[in-house]
């Protein structure tokens, strides 16, 4: 084949890198959005009503930090309890027992349908419905009983509302995860002589959880924000602690900003954890991964652009 000879005013195509194609629309749009963002930031920083010095004063206030601890405690407890109940529900839903299937279905239907806020208020007022809670023989004598109002504190009501709601969502996720595991895994384990519980615990659940971990991470971030509902029960979480302070000092906006900053920090930390775990799960088993392999903003290159031009 005959190549065109390099002309005098132009270097050879083999000696030069092509200028990457530019997307003018992306540049223009990006510039406009950037300008708007800067404007918004300027309002935030320079607006006197934001009172940044007040924000700084309260950011590490003892009450705020205690509220932060409460928010974290609620998130962790509600997630742990919710996942544990959800796991049981998922297994019941997939069992061959009709009663198990039905109870699980009704629970999921109910707690997915009732808003957590309504539930919390309801649980808190449970004493109006059942003044006394007892353990005993059904329809027979009672062995122990408690006064419902002693048992149901704002804290337990909050945990119940949050955990039960989470359990319904977790159950559906875990069920989908279990069903996504190749049935051949169960058969292989069965032919090795494992019992049902062993197959589930050692073979199926570890694989199902791997599938379910990313949505659980997502749920944890949602839960962190849902905990702010507990302020209706006067439970001093992050938001309610801020509310108590501004009720006294009238520094409403600065204290809301304090709470916002903490929520953002926590969700950022959780997001990073989630990315790390997801990244690790995506890697082939046995392959070591490092934190700095993480790409939060991966570049999407089309193939013809990424083809290297050899010098």
């Amino acid at each position, binding site marked *: 084949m005959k190549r065109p000879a390099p002309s005098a005013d132009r270097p050879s195509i083999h000696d030069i890198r092509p200028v990457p194609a530019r997307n003018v629309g992306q540049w223009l749009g990006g510039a406009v959005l950037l300008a708007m963002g800067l404007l918004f930031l300027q309002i935030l920083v320079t607006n006197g009503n934001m009172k940044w010095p007040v924000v700084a004063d309260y950011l590490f206030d003892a009450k705020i930090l205690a509220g932060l601890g409460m928010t974290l405690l609620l998130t962790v407890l509600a997630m742990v309890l919710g996942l544990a109940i959800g796991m049981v529900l998922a297994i019941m839903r997939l069992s061959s027992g009709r009663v198990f299937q039905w109870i699980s279905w009704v629970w999921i239907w109910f707690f997915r349908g009732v808003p957590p806020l309504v539930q919390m208020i309801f649980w808190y007022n449970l004493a109006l419905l059942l003044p006394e809670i007892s353990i005993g023989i059904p329809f027979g004598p009672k062995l122990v009983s408690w006064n419902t109002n002693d048992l149901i504190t704002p804290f337990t009501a909050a945990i119940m509302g949050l955990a039960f709601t989470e359990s319904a969502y977790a159950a559906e996720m875990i069920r989908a995860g279990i069903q996504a595991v*190749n049935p*051949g*895994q169960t*058969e*292989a*384990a*069965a*032919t*090795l*002589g*494992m*019992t*049902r519980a*062993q197959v589930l615990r*050692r*073979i199926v659940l*570890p*694989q199902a959880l*791997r599938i379910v971990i990313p949505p659980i991470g997502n749920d944890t971030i949602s839960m962190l924000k849902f905990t702010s509902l507990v302020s209706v029960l006067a439970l001093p979480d992050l938001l309610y602690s801020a509310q108590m302070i501004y009720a006294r000092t009238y520094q409403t906006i600065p204290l809301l900003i304090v709470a916002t900053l903490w929520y953002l920090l926590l969700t950022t930390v959780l997001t990073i954890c989630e990315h790390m775990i997801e990244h690790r799960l995506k890697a*082939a*088993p*046995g392959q070591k991964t490092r934190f700095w392999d993480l790409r939060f903003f991966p570049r999407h290159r089309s193939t013809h652009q990424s083809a290297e031009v050899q010098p």
Partner: protein
Amino acid sequence: MTPLLQVEKLRKAFGTHEVLRGIDLQVNRGEVICIVGPSGSGKSTLLRCLNHLEKPTGGAVFLMGEPVGLRWKGRSLHEMTFNELARQRQRMGMVFQGFHLFPHKTALENVVEAPIIVKGVPRAQAEAEAMTLLDKVGMRDRAHYYPAQLSGGQQQRTAIARSLAMKPDLMLFDEPTSALDPELVGEVLATMRHLADEGMTMVVVTHEMGFARDVADHLVFMDGGVIVEEGKPSEVLINPRHDRTRAFLSRVISET
């Protein structure tokens, strides 16, 4: 002497579709039985009925004289639960076409899993025994690899070691080489030959006629859910008595 495995009038239907229509088969200790037949003839179903991965709809399977998956209580016959079956299943190892190694465990962990949690073998002893088995199937140097890091042939050899770790009385193979690239078939067949030479009792569903001819003590040809013809491989392969066997063999042999 009671045979190791006895199959009597075994039937299996999926809905109205009769897949097995009365199978009688006997497997003595130390024997290698190969089952061949066209696709859809019910070979996998037969194998899966032996260890009750499928519940037969009629007839029975006896392992050392005991009915598999069923127990007598006085004069009435009861189905076993999954957990009661586990005891019988661990005496029949099974190797699948699709390997089904546990992907979250290394080759070694795959092999030691069942001895440790089912039989309660101490971990150190289980690992030592597993390494011997992995050595036998030529996987010693890959013991710490995950299934995703192994070739198909390596995965299948690990799966064989995993089954052997339970010290079964009998090994069932369902087309163990059908999912493999042609150049990997040989290594798995060699492992199985080696196992047969050691006296392992084996029931092998296969399309590998060479293996059937050389290794099987008894060859079974199935079609349409029944055993059409059986006997010594030399006789069945060279002098088939039935037209259906002849047609199948000429088709298979012309392919290879």
